[in-house]
């Protein structure tokens, strides 16, 4: 029998087609995406939403002005609509949207460049930036193994207890240091427990689901607990101040919401939700193992090897407590943002985190995005666009009797939940904040109540992976499917919404606003 060589006689490796485009292609993906527009239609398909958004913008701007809306108001409204489409569909990198918002304010509204630049940086933005730096610093402390040790020592080996323990610890931590931080810290704990229980992914599907959802839902429901729990809280606090606070007017003093006031409103909701998370998870997924003895025993051995707490660990914890105290007691005087960036500076000075880690760990584009979104939100108020939408929103709700009280609260909560499931919750609050606060004014409701309902509802992004940072991070571990989020998410949404409305109706009035 003749021997053939695979190389010569079998399938051939051809050179890639035409040289000029290929040479350009090799230079990198960013350019590849541009080059592909010349070669084929994929570019247009993948960025179709960008063009659709731009077309919608062009159409809106060429329409005659609706009654009661100024030309500037229409422009700002158009920008918000276009930005919302881009937020949801993500055809271009999202920080691009921020850049376009800035450019749009200058070119379309004719604002002074310096004015727009100044409006970008506020205390809320400083706070978001500082908390992100702190988040990296906290993750880098490697406290996760000690926390894991603490959890399994207290909870024992029953699956339900381990999950409850993880949810409680994730939640309490997340309420102070942000849900993304906790998700990044606790994810290895969850995955380790799963892997130690069984190597075969198919045999631990439900165990994986309850453990990982305990982390991400535990952290998600906690994100509303305190202002430092998430960017959206800081954004809402910023809106209250920008919209309603008049320096020197004692009546408007209540709109300067401080750390403790926020906690008084929101923390009970988180505490009530926490046991419900475990309950809902265990009624949805039936774990294959009632006890995780094997996994827990191995995890204990693994974390015991770490030894006792090092002085640097205590130092980090101590510093974080100082920052927390700063937020509680000093934020009224110097601003929450100042405390946050001061805290980040102290962590850097103490050598507990390297600037390089902070620099690569924080996505600065997000800071830019929130800055631009808040600045656009303030324009919504200044140009009367928010007022106009609010009026129309109320007119729309009046026939069904939802223009005041509980009906309005429920409507706003549902609206926010819908929006937040399609985009990041910070972006949802940034977009909706100005509108709902004006709705509150038009309807004669307390802007504080309505603001809280929006901020809290923005955490109800249980249905999709992109909804909350914690879900996205946990999803990246590869154990969950997108369908799982829907399966358990809808129960969470209903329970959370009902709980929020009950608390709003019974508990908040006691706080007296």
């Amino acid at each position, binding site marked *: *029998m003749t021997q*053939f*060589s*695979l*190389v010569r*006689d*079998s*399938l*051939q*490796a*051809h050179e*890639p*087609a035409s040289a000029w485009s290929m040479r350009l292609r*090799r230079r*990198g*993906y*960013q350019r*590849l995406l541009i080059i592909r527009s010349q070669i*084929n*239609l*994929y570019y*247009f*398909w*993948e960025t179709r939403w960008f063009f659709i958004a731009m077309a919608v913008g062009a159409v809106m701007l060429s329409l005659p002005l609706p009654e009661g809306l100024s030309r500037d108001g229409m422009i700002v409204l158009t920008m918000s609509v276009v930005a919302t489409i881009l937020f949801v569909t*993500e055809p271009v990198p*999202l920080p691009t949207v921020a850049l376009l918002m800035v450019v749009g304010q200058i070119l379309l509204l004719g604002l002074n460049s310096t004015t727009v630049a100044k409006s970008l940086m506020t205390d809320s933005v400083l706070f*978001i930036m500082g908390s*992100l730096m702190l*988040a*990296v610093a906290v*993750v880098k402390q*490697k406290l*996760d193994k000690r926390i894991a040790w603490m959890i399994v020592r207290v909870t024992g080996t029953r699956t339900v207890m381990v999950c409850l323990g993880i949810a409680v610890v994730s939640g309490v931590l997340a309420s102070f240091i*942000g849900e*993304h*931080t906790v998700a990044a*810290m606790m*994810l*290895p704990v969850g*995955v*380790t427990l799963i892997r130690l229980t069984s190597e075969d992914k198919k045999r631990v599907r439900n165990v994986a689901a309850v453990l990982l959802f305990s982390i991400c839902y535990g952290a998600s429901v906690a994100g509303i607990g305190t202002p430092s729990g*998430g*960017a959206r809280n800081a954004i809402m606090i910023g809106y209250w101040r920008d919209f309603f606070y008049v320096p020197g007017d004692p009546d408007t003093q209540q709109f300067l919401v401080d750390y403790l006031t926020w906690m008084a409103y929101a923390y009970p909701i988180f505490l009530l939700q926490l046991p419900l998370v475990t309950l809902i998870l265990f009624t949805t997924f039936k774990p294959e193992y009632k006890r995780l003895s094997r996994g827990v025993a191995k995890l204990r051995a693994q974390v015991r090897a770490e030894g006792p707490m090092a002085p640097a660990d205590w130092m980090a914890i101590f510093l974080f407590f100082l920052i927390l105290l700063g937020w509680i007691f000093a934020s009224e005087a110097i601003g929450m943002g100042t405390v946050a960036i001061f805290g980040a500076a102290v962590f850097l000075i103490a050598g507990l985190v390297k600037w390089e880690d902070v620099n*690569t*760990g*924080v*996505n600065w*584009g*997000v*800071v830019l*995005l929130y800055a631009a979104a808040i600045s656009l939100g303030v324009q919504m108020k200044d140009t009367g666009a928010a007022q106009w939408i609010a009026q129309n929103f109320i007119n729309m709700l009046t026939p069904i009797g939802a223009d005041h009280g509980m009906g309005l609260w429920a409507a706003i909560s549902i609206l926010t939940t819908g929006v937040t499931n399609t985009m*990041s919750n910070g972006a949802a609050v940034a977009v909706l904040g100005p509108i709902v606060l004006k709705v509150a004014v038009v309807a004669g409701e307390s802007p504080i109540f309505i603001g809280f309902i929006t901020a809290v509802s923005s955490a109800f992004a249980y249905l999709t*992976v992109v909804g*909350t*940072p914690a879900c*996205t*991070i946990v999803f*990246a*571990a*590869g154990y969950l499917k997108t369908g799982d989020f829907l399966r358990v998410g809808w129960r969470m949404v209903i329970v959370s919404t009902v709980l929020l409305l009950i608390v709003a109706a019974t508990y908040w009035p006691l706080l007296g606003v």
Partner: protein
Amino acid sequence: MSKEERQAQEQQRALREWRRNRFRILACVDGSDESYEGLRYAAEIGRSDECDIILLHVRPFDQGLRTGGLQMSVARENMLEWDIEMPGVECLKKGLELLIEAGHMQKDWEFMASRSEVRGDPVGDNKIEYRSKTGKSIILKLKTAPDAASGILDQYELGPYNVIILGAQHRWQGDLRSLWDAGVTQKVAMLAPCSTLVTRKLGKGKGCLICIDGSEHSLGAARRAAVLAQHAGSPVALISVVLKDEDRKVVGAQVDAAKAAIESMGIPVSEAIVRAGDPVEQIIRVGARYQLIVVSDSGKSRIKRFVVGSVAFKVMGHATNSVLNVR
């Protein structure tokens, strides 16, 4: 052009020249059962020393906003501290284990790891190469790209490959739709300059069925595929489909000629089938008995394919077992 640049280009050319003397298999793994099936096939044909097997996993760029401004890399690094691998690495490791089980790698192989920066992603591309004394190598590559298909196609440009192996996708878009929106496998199958093998789990049969349409091109492809089948140790069968019964004679002669041509190469042909009817339907029906169906498209441009329609692509999309498209 500076001297260094010229030197680098010279090196690049030498590397490509060397690679052209190897039979390079690009096996794309995404963790699905189909993709491991493809890897098993790669192991079958890649036994000889002149084969290199490259395992590729493409993962998307990290999206910063969704994680609330904390880069995914922070979470990733933390996972690595706990000795937990990313899902992509897990896929690749599982693939490597599969190859080791198939007796592909010995202990004395050289080991090299490299990493390259990618703009827009903190982790970048990672590559691990195992090389034997005889020059045979197995490469694990974790790539970052905006989407899987363009990642695979980009990988092709880094070094030519003889065949790309992909797991089949569930839905195969129609001809018109595929011009701008196709799944990963379909897009790669359309755009790849080399042969592509789409694997499915269902193929329980044995041997490979080579489709012939009487053209010079398909005869050439049939010969090449026959050589490959011989290497994999599977028997070869031929099929040709006629639209009308009257043409049976002409086509029968063509098939016999092809059979003779392949047998003259010393490769036995077990069957030569002629069927009448719709080509796609007949090929898929007969092909179900075999492990692999071999088709060849004439390398039509995408516009042309849309106008003329391609049996090869319809078979690739709708067959129930694995399909090799020879280019």
